[in-house]
């Protein structure tokens, strides 16, 4: 500002910032670090929280019906993709469809592949009925052929291999016809085929030395979508009362229950991550408050001199707030920009890394969080200065000058 002899009041703040580039840069970097942690942390925790929350939604089904005694297995299949094999009669499909409050049903047939030469990998093979399915289809990236041929499969998002590749199960080659979007559920590590193909695989399974053979007309589970206006719990109760709970040979599992079971352990982890981010953030704010008050303390003489020249307490305070506000705004924007820059390109990598249900924030949420973090970052500098300003304003100008050194 060498060439502008006449200053406005806000120029004072800008001169102070400009003439002390290292101090200014240091403070900006500190605020940037803080907003980086704040924005990055909230983005990741948001994704994790909504990931666990929306798990039920992403399972696609409101209720699952499996043979009695296997309700804990279904959790492993749906959430972690743990292979298992169990059966019940397909009569249940039509029986369940009649129950009040049931809108749609679709059968699934589970076959576990083996960790042997016959198979590409030990994995959950799921047979599904394409015409009635409402669980798998929404997640398929590319358009699926009208109906899957017996040797065609749809692979989960976490399975390596692209459309057109072949995978071997029980010495049969299957062509990958489509690949699913990542769902953050056990689906990601599952392979889907039509029911007939799954039946064939189940027969192969027996030949390959697996467990008992599936009786004719078997399915492993019925996925249920409830009618609008009914809750999953109401329909669960209805099914239980219609088919004599405990004696029917089936067990009705609301998707929510599965989620709540996992939520227990998952939640702890997510809360831990959130707490860590929060702690880091509090630490950053504390450091910032200390640094600001040290910096302002060093500059007391400067502020006292301004008072001696006729600056009111209010003016000196606003000068400090303008300076810390500019620093905060610059740092906040830099930190959020940096966090976005890091998180957006690597979001898929982060999702794979955390290995738990993870939903990316929508653009609107992303923008809202960025804005919120910016507001907080913007406020943090002036807030950090507030304490020093208040203390300074209690004193006479001469006292402030003397405290600032001679």
């Amino acid at each position, binding site marked *: *500002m*060498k060439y502008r*002899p*006449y*200053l*406005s*009041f806000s*120029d*004072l703040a800008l*001169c*102070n910032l*400009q*003439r*002390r580039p290292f101090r200014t840069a240091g403070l900006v970097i500190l605020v940037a670090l803080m907003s980086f942690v704040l924005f990055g942390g909230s983005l990741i925790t948001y994704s994790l929280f909504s990931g666990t929350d929306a798990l039920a939604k992403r399972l696609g089904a409101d209720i699952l019906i499996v043979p009695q005694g296997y309700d804990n297995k279904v959790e492993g299949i749906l959430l972690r993709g743990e292979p298992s094999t169990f059966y019940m009669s397909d009569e249940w499909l039509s029986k369940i469809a009649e129950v009040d409050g049931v809108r749609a049903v679709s059968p699934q047939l589970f076959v576990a592949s083996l960790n042997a030469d016959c198979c590409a990998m030990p994995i959950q093979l799921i047979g599904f009925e394409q015409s009635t399915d409402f669980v798998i289809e929404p997640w398929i990236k590319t358009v699926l052929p009208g109906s899957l041929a017996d040797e065609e499969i749809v692979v989960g998002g976490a399975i390596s291999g692209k459309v057109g590749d072949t995978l071997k199960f029980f010495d049969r080659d299957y062509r990958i016809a489509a690949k699913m979007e990542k769902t953050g559920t056990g689906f990601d590590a599952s392979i889907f085929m039509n029911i007939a193909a799954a039946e064939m695989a189940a027969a192969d399974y027996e030949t390959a030395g697996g467990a008992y053979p599936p009786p004719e007309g078997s399915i492993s589970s019925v996925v249920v979508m409830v009618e609008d206006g009914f809750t999953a719990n109401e329909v669960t109760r209805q099914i239980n009362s219609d088919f004599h709970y405990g004696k029917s040979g089936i067990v009705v599992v609301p998707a929510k229950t599965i989620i709540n079971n996992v939520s227990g352990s998952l939640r702890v982890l997510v809360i831990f991550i959130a707490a860590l981010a929060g702690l880091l953030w509090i630490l950053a704010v504390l450091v910032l408050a200390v640094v600001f008050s040290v910096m302002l303390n060093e500059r007391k003489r*400067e502020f006292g*001199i*301004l*008072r*001696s*020249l*006729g*600056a*009111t*307490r*209010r*003016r000196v305070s606003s000068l400090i707030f303008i300076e810390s506000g500019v620093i905060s705004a610059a740092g906040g924007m830099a930190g959020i920009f940096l966090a976005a820059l890091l998180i957006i390109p690597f979001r898929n990598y982060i999702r794979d890394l955390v290995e738990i249900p993870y939903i990316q924030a929508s653009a609107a949420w992303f923008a809202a969080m960025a804005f919120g973090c910016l507001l907080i970052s913007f406020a943090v500098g002036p807030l950090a200065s507030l304490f020093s300003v208040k203390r300074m304003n209690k004193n*006479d*100008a*001469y*006292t402030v*000058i003397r405290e600032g050194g*001679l």
Partner: protein
Amino acid sequence: MILEAREIRKEYKRGGTLLQAVDDVSLELTEGEFVCLVGRSGSGKSTLLNILAGLLSPTSGSVSFEGRNYTEMDDEALSLLRNTRLGYIMQGHSVLPNFTVLQNVILPHVLFKRGGEPAERAAELLEDVGIRHLSSQYPHELSGGELRRVAIARALLSAPSLLIADEPTGDLDDETTADIMDLFAGLAEKGTAVLMVTHDTEAASRSHRILTMKAGRIVKAGL
């Protein structure tokens, strides 16, 4: 009457004991009066000057400036008074490091907006104190005596009716000191009241009246 101080006391607590830095001082200054305050180091001169300038509140006693009592004025009014009516040159350095010499001199105008173009007047004042050529320099490029003269020019920007100066010629050579004393004497002639602390007897001899302080009291008028 420009300035009237009645029974000013200032107590400091230092290491558990009470110290009377200023002890029952009363004084009056009229327009155009040029007064020097002398006394040994630690006798309370700076403390008194800061109280008179409204920068430090006394433990007891009252100060009125042009008939208005400081204790009855709020921060806004007192600040405006300091900004427009009172020039104050403090002991030690008082030039802000992030502004050029010229910017430092026009600071009072920046703090309270008012009409007029201060840059011209500032340049004149810098000419008067002999450092106009340093106008666009930053304080870290100046000598102690040059910095002192920046503070003098700045105190005069608003054409104050009272100039309070705490050892304004401390870092100056004899010749420059004489120039500054000429400047102050000239101001007094035009009606500005000047109250100045100095250890320089030669300089003090230019004043109309000399007050001597000792242990917080004004012990005599004269050296």
